[in-house]
């Protein structure tokens, strides 16, 4: 009995000490949080004011006109709404070309990204000392804008879909390689140890041990990249690689009277993205086994 009361007495100041220490820690955390919030708001406000003062037109004057251009496009498209289905049919072949460029570049870039990601994940890499160089290689692939690579390649190879495909594939390899390698980091090493214990080589360990764990995540990143690449290949059409981007540029730049074509192309692009979004979530669920 005496022992228990003694133990309680010695425990009581202990608890209050822990409470005080924890409350002090909470106060410090809250103070830092508050200071960070104030700094964040101050930086955002001052940054915005600075950018606005350097702006040619001024944000507040321009913001009211933001809907003027889309409004003009929509107004003209509404007048010629009956022509739009025919225009969509007319532009459909160029859309196919654009989607083809995106698909081929996603596939080639994705395969390259798989190899790069496995070589640049710590704990999995075939050559652990070369993890850094492979990462820097992916950084370079991501850093150079695809439009620059495409312009250089168009200069060398001439206009057409192949330079656009190569340019997008290189960028895809860098971007997906980074994402894939982050997925690989979360893969469990236990199956790999199991495969190593039976004498499997590196390639076998990667294909049979890592890929089954990470494939669903790889696929969803690759499909997202495919959507991004459709848009990128449409943009590259502006610099002369064919596809729907070329038609879009012509419709835009030849001035008045072509906004119905612009509307038709945007509708086509929107429908394509929706279609591939639906397709990709369907097949991803199938792979994960949720359907």
């Amino acid at each position: 009995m005496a022992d228990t009361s003694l133990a309680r007495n010695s425990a009581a100041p202990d608890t209050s000490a822990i409470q005080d220490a924890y409350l002090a820690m909470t106060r410090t955390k809250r103070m830092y949080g508050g200071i960070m919030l104030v700094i964040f708001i101050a930086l955002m406000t001052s940054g915005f004011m600075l950018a606005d003062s350097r702006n040619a037109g001024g944000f507040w004057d321009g913001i009211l006109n933001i809907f003027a251009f889309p409004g003009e496009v929509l107004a003209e498209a509404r007048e010629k709404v009956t022509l739009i289905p025919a225009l969509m049919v007319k532009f459909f072949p160029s859309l196919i070309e654009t989607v083809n460029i995106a698909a081929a570049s996603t596939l080639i870039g994705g395969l390259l990204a798989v190899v790069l990601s496995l070589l640049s994940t710590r704990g999995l890499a075939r050559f652990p000392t070369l993890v850094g160089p492979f990462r820097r290689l992916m950084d370079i692939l991501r850093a150079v804008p695809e439009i620059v690579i495409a312009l250089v390649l168009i200069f060398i190879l001439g206009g057409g879909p192949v330079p656009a495909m190569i340019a997008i594939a290189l960028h895809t390899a860098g971007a997906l390689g980074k994402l894939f390698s982050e997925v690989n980091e979360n893969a469990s090493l236990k199956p790999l140890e199991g495969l190593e214990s039976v004498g499997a080589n590196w390639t076998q360990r990667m294909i049979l041990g890592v890929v089954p764990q990470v494939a669903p995540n790889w696929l969803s990143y690759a499909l997202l990249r495919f959507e991004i690449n459709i848009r990128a290949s449409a943009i590259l059409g502006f610099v002369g690689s064919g596809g729907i981007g070329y038609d879009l540029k012509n419709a835009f730049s030849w001035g008045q009277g072509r906004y119905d074509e612009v509307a038709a192309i945007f509708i086509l692009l929107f429908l394509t993205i929706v279609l591939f979004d639906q397709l990709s979530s369907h097949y991803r669920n199938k792979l994960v086994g949720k359907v």
Partner: protein
Amino acid sequence: MLKITKLTRKFGPNTAVDAVSFTVEKPMMIGIIGRSGAGKSTLLRMVNRLTDATEGKIEFEGRDVTALKGDAKRAWQSDCAMIFQQFNLVPRMDVVSNVLHGTLNRRSTLATMFNLYPQADICRAIEILDRLGIAEHAPKRAEALSGGQQQRVAIARALMQDPRIVLADEPIASLDPMNAQLVMDDLRRIHEEDGRTVIANLHTLDTARRYCDRVIGMLHGRIVFDGTPEQLTTGAARDIYGADAGFSETSTSTSIETLERAGVRAMRTAEAAI
């Protein structure tokens, strides 16, 4: 107090829980035993409303719990704490924050988003941790603690809810015998000192016998045994597990006492033989 009537849960063609009925008149400690897949977890999850019932009714003090929705359902969940086999704590948050999660139902979303809790709640959380003997770990991240300590944090979170009922789904299945005993002692104390009802899924018979006032046995989703621990003979246990005469408790027991008893018995037989 708690009345369950013909509670059924179907997963596609499988019936996990099949027309289960029982009544709890006064606060007590109940152990549910049965082999894996017998529907014990699904039953507890339905009481907490983590899983919806296909048919049947759960009534608590005359209120139909199965029909609750939205806010009312979350308020019930706050009254009916759940402890999981794998602890289900937020691993990257500190122990006290994990315990404070027990008050989420009473606090505004905005305040909890920024981890802002009243000072009184923080003090109470640390008092509860002290009661369970882990107050010195208060500022540590939950993932830095051992399994037994994490389970006691989970119990502290349950106590922070100030619940009427504590449900424990295999609370000691991933713990070693020593920690298992500490956790079960804590659950028993929650019942004895606070007068709360504790319903625990257990997978060892000796734990059920030692700690519970009432034992319910389930097989293939049905209740096949409902009685006091004394009535739970080896024969009754064989029926619950659908086992034959080769079934022996001591061979798989994880309790330290049982091992000792078995050891003493072995010694005696050896001595007798000599």
